[in-house]
């Protein structure tokens, strides 16, 4: 429309070419990860690695799944992530509702600012006191320490994501229920939550991915294999002398699989939710 046809075509070609370069840059490590995971040892430890796999094998995956504590680590990650997601969702729905509906009250304003500031406070600065707190309450080497830490650090953004969605729900929906004598809690559960499912999904997804991917607290709070989550466990696969790169890449493939699959199905919700939260915060 704006430019001549020829110019538009050149523009398109340049755009496609640049986007292809970006895609290669972004995806190459994953492609290489999968290729390496499928290679037998002889093809891994060679000075001339190739993209082509001569003897593709699942031995790396089989070894990881059966010979190491991998399944246990995945289970631990799942337990910790699911529970911290559920808890932070409940908390964020309540707090987000208050932020949206009672935004003019003094307490709510103060809490809002408090959350903005909390969002800026990084975990590593609180590592020592949090470690001491967990030590004091004997929560080190248990799921509780991680669930507590992960929940806390996602509460601010989750709350902002929920409240910015609640802002779009007209108040008249609730008024009818209130006239009928519904309590606030009942209103939230019967009126608000059913219309907020997409937003709840994207908020939950954010909480889940944050917990699943977290490394530092999992690395410091847990020292026994029984409760170790998958992210710090991957560090174990990197031996002091000889690293089993094939096994390591197979583990990586398996560790990113759940998150990637969930994301591909729900990516639309996820991105829009993430943006609405960060714009508000």
């Amino acid at each position, binding site marked *: 429309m704006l430019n001549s046809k020829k110019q538009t075509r050149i523009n398109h070609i340049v755009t496609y070419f640049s986007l292809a370069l970006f895609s290669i840059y*972004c995806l190459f*490590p*994953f492609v290489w990860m999968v290729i390496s995971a499928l290679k037998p040892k002889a093809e891994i430890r060679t000075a001339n690695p190739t993209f082509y796999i001569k003897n593709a094998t699942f031995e790396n995956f089989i070894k990881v799944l059966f010979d190491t504590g991998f399944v246990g680590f995945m289970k631990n990650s799942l337990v910790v992530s699911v529970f911290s997601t559920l808890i932070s969702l409940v908390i964020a729905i309540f707090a987000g509702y208050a932020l949206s509906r009672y935004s003019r009250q003094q307490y709510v304003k103060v809490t809002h600012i408090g959350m903005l500031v909390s969002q800026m406070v990084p975990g590593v600065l*609180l590592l020592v006191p*949090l470690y001491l707190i967990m030590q004091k309450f004997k929560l080190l080497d248990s799921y509780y320490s991680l669930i507590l830490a992960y929940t806390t650090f996602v509460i*601010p953004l989750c709350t902002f994501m929920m409240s910015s969605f609640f802002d779009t729900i007209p108040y008249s929906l609730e008024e009818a229920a209130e006239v009928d004598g519904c309590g606030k809690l009942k209103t939230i559960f019967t009126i608000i939550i059913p219309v907020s499912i997409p937003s709840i999904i994207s908020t939950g997804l954010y909480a889940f991915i944050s917990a699943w*991917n977290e490394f530092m607290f999992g690395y410091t709070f847990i020292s026994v294999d029984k409760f170790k989550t998958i*992210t710090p466990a991957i560090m174990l696969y990197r031996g002091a002398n000889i690293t089993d790169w094939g096994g390591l890449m197979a583990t*990586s493939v398996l560790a990113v699989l759940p998150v990637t699959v969930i994301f591909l199905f729900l990516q639309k919700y996820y991105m829009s939710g993430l943006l609405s939260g960060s714009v508000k915060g």
Partner: protein
Amino acid sequence: MPSKNQTEIVKRKLSRDQRSKVTAILLLMPAVIFLLGLIAYPLVKVVFDSFSYSHLINKTLSGFAGLNNFKKVVSDEHFTQALINTVVWTVFSVLGEYVLGLGSAVLLNQDIKGRTVFRIFIFIPWLVPIIVAGMTWSWILNPDFGILNNLLVNFHFIKTPINFLGDKNIAMASVIFINIWRSFPYYTISILAALQSIPSDIQEAASIDGAGMFKRFFKITLPQLKSVSLVLVFIHIIWTSINFDFIWILTQGGPNYATETLPLMIYRYSMKLFDVGAASALSTIMIIFMTVLFVFYYKKRSQLSESAM
């Protein structure tokens, strides 16, 4: 009697207000408990601990330390290096991320087929755990069996393999490069959302007036991105400067402290030397830096939103 009626209304209104106040407090309670207990209290404790003697294992060590903890960490032979490393790591990471994020967002904003697929491709690095990103890259960059060295040697860009993460002159650049790879997609998505909210008729009008592509970009598009850029850059300056995972996974601060930033130094003092006092002093120093940054950011941001109105 109107007066009685009025007082009744006031009374009812008051109780309604009070009721909603109680509701709001109850709804906020769980969030506030978490944030007070696990963010506010630890924050205060860090500052308090930085002025006292405290040890992770040896609990008998205690008492007021004055500024001794601060003196100790500042006179650490690697402190200045760590400070410089933190600045280099932060500035170059954020700069690279912003440039790539802006570029890819502008590309994705073009009206072309397959946009969604490209968007998903570009977003994927942000999704994977840092540990997986770190491990995969250290495998790619491996000097003995790594694919990158192999390609570079075969195409005669270099003669001998480079030890990307093990050479103290190159390690920092490598770590920054990997960090940019993993973090820029967040910029892409945020800037893209901002771009899509710019009304296209401004662009069209400028184009009719004869403004070229580059002129339109610098005169129209960029100014519209001012506020999202400010948010992105400041949040990432903070997120990057305090990042621990990335460097720890890739180099553990080595070789020979060449990539040790302040957060890694905090980790070294707390979890390796068990010196809670010194680690807290370092944290306090970082908290002060960040408070200054935050205040600056907050002022800039309210200025921007005022001028927008």
